[in-house]
């Protein structure tokens, strides 16, 4: 259950290779990469800063991955999330899940992202032409997380 918070960028291909590590039981790897866009809520974004709560963030991610493992039969999950200053097109977050079949891998990967978005203590501050602003939580993210609670 590798979980990493870091300022540095990451290499998705290399991380997926580590997750696979030649394990011939794995038939499926679902993954997600989140990127900085240059537009947000209609405003141009020149850069973004990601703040987090050291200690609690790691705990929250460990709990989310553990919950995914109780819900689906998966081998392992990887979560990497960056903090600090990021520019448009840069990678913010990566989640990858290995499993025997794709259904479990997809579901667990999306679940982890949905819960990370609503439960892990990260905050985005964007710089727009009108100045810096803290990003508001999206209702769509809340809805995405809540749909897993009905299952």
């Amino acid at each position, binding site marked *: 259950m590798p979980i990493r918070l870091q300022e540095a960028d990451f290499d998705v291909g290399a991380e997926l290779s580590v997750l696979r590590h030649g394990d011939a039981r794995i038939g499926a790897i679902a993954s997600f990469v989140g990127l900085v866009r240059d537009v947000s809520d209609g405003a141009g974004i020149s850069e973004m800063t990601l703040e987090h709560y050291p200690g609690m963030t790691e705990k929250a991610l460990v709990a989310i991955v553990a919950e995914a493992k109780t819900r689906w039969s998966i081998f392992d999950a990887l979560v990497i999330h960056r903090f600090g200053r990021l520019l448009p097109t840069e990678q913010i977050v990566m989640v990858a899940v290995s499993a025997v079949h794709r259904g479990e891998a997809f579901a667990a990967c999306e679940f982890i992202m949905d819960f990370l978005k609503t439960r892990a203590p990260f905050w985005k501050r964007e710089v727009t032409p009108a100045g810096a602003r803290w990003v508001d*939580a999206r209702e769509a993210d809340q809805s995405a997380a809540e749909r897993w609670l009905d299952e």
Partner: protein
Amino acid sequence: MLNILYFASLRETLGHSSEHLDLPPDVHDVGGLLNLLIARGGDWAKLSSVKNIRYAVNQEMARLDSPLKAGDEVAFFPPVTGG
């Protein structure tokens, strides 16, 4: 003593990222602490109008009625926006 942390927009509004505070005898939960902070006035009074403020005690999400004891780490922050 409590270790209190403020994050993101709250940190900027209050002008503090953390503070140490002796747990007052009449404060028993997160709500009591929040009222104490608001009563300081000035920028602290803005805490009463912050929408959807979140709290954590010892790095677990908490509620207004979550109990506090000396040595606890308490955090206040806005809804999360990572990922």
